[in-house]
C-alpha cells in the first residue's frame, strides 16, 4: 500500500516553489496576487531550509563510529 504523502513534503514544497518561480518569471504577473505569492515563496523557502537543517543535524548526531 502506498504511503500517503505529507502535504508539506520536501518534494512537494520544492515543486510548489518551482511553480511560483514560473509564475513570477512568466508573463502572468499580477500585482494583486504578487504579495501573497511572494509571502508563500518565502514561507516555503524557510520550511525547506528547516528541513535541510534538521537533516544536517540528524547526520551529525547519528554519526557512526567504529571500534
Amino acid at each position, binding site marked *: 500500500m502506498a504511503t500517503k504523502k505529507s502535504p508539506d513534503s520536501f518534494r512537494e514544497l520544492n515543486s510548489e*516553489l*518551482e511553480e*511560483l*518561480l514560473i509564475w*513570477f*518569471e512568466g508573463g502572468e*504577473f499580477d*500585482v494583486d496576487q*504578487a504579495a501573497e505569492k*511572494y509571502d508563500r*515563496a*518565502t514561507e516555503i*523557502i524557510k520550511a*525547506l*531550509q528547516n528541513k*535541510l537543517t534538521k*537533516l*544536517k543535524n540528524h*547526520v551529525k548526531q547519528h*554519526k*557512526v563510529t*567504529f*571500534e
Partner: protein
Amino acid sequence: MNQIEQKPTFTPSDLVGSINQTFDLAYGRLIIEGELANFRISKNKWVYFDLKDDYARVACFGTVFQLPGPLEDGMILRLTGEARLHPQFGFSVNVASIQPVGQGSIKRAADLLTLKLKKEGLFEPARKRSLPFAPERVALIAASDSAAYKDFLKILDERWGGIMIETTNVLVQGENAPTQLVRAIQYFNEQPSLAEVIIITRGGGSADDLAAFNNEHVVRAIVSSRIPTLVAIGHEVDISLAELAADLRASTPSNAAQLLVPDKSYIISQLQSMTGTIDSSITRYVQNQELSHSQSFMRIYQAVDSQLRELNNYLKQQGEIARLLSPVAALKRGYALIKKQGRILRSASAVRGGDALTLHLHDGTIDTVVRKTPS
C-alpha cells in the same frame, strides 16, 4: 594307555570352535597386508577376496559396508580382521576394515571411487550450496590436538571472532578415522538446533595418512549433510574426495577460516568508506538545495523588482502623457482658453460684437467684451 588315547577327541564342531578360540587367543584382531586377488561381490552385500603374496594366499570375507570404496585386483590392501575357521567354508579372515596402501593402490582406489561418485553426480557444481556469510555458529570436526585445528581457530578469531564453535575431536587418520568422521557429521546433523556450517579439516600428510578423506562413507556423509560443509584437508596440492564432495573446498585449514569469515578490519574500513560516501553525499545534496533555494529566492525577488520597475515606468509614462495632454500645459505656454457663457469657444464665427467672453490663462481669468468680429 597309549599316547593316542591320552589326546582329547573332538567332534568337528568342537574342533572348529577350539581352533577359533585359539585364533582369538593367539592373534585377536590381526592386520594383514597383501595384494588383492579374486575380488568379488555377491548379492550386493557379501565380499569375497584373497590377499596374496608370492608364496601364499589368504581368503577373506566381509560386507560391502566395510569397503573404503571400489576395489580391484592387484591393489595392495591393509586389512584388519579376525582369523576364522568356518564350519562349512573353511578358513578365512573376517574383515573389520580395509585400506588401500602404497601410493599406487591408494591412487587407483581413489580414481575408481572418483569415477563411481562422479557418475552419481556427487561432485556436480549444481549441488553445491553457498555458505552463510560470517556464520555465528560453526561445527568443527578435527583432531583437537592438531596444528590444523589450532590454525583454523587462530585465523578465525583474528579475522572475525565471537563465533560459537562446537567441536568434535576425531581421529583423522588410521583405521577408525572414517567411522569417527561419519559419526561426527551425523552427530551435528542430528542436533535439534543445527550449526550453520560444518568444517572438516586436517593438516597435510602422505596419501596413506589422508586416506580417510577418500573413503566412500565419509564422502557420502558429507554429501548427505543437511548442514553446508567446508572441507580443508592437507596442503594446497592435496585434493581429497571429501573436498570434492563438500559445498566448498579450502586449500588449507587457515584458508578455510579465510573463506568462512571476512576480515573484520577490512569490513570496518569498507563501512567507514561507505559511511563517508553517504555523509558527503548528504552534505552535497544539502548544499545544492540551499544554493538552489537561495537562487530561487533571488530570481523571485528580481522578478518582482523588475515587474515593479516596469509598472513604475509605465505609470510615469502615463503621467507624462497626461501632463502633456493637459490644457494647463498649453496655458502655461501662453495659450488661453476662451469661454462664452461658460462653454469653450471653438470658432470665431460663433462670436458677435458685444459678446462677453472669459479668457482663461494659466494663472487666472480675464473677462472681456468683443468689440469687433472678423468680416
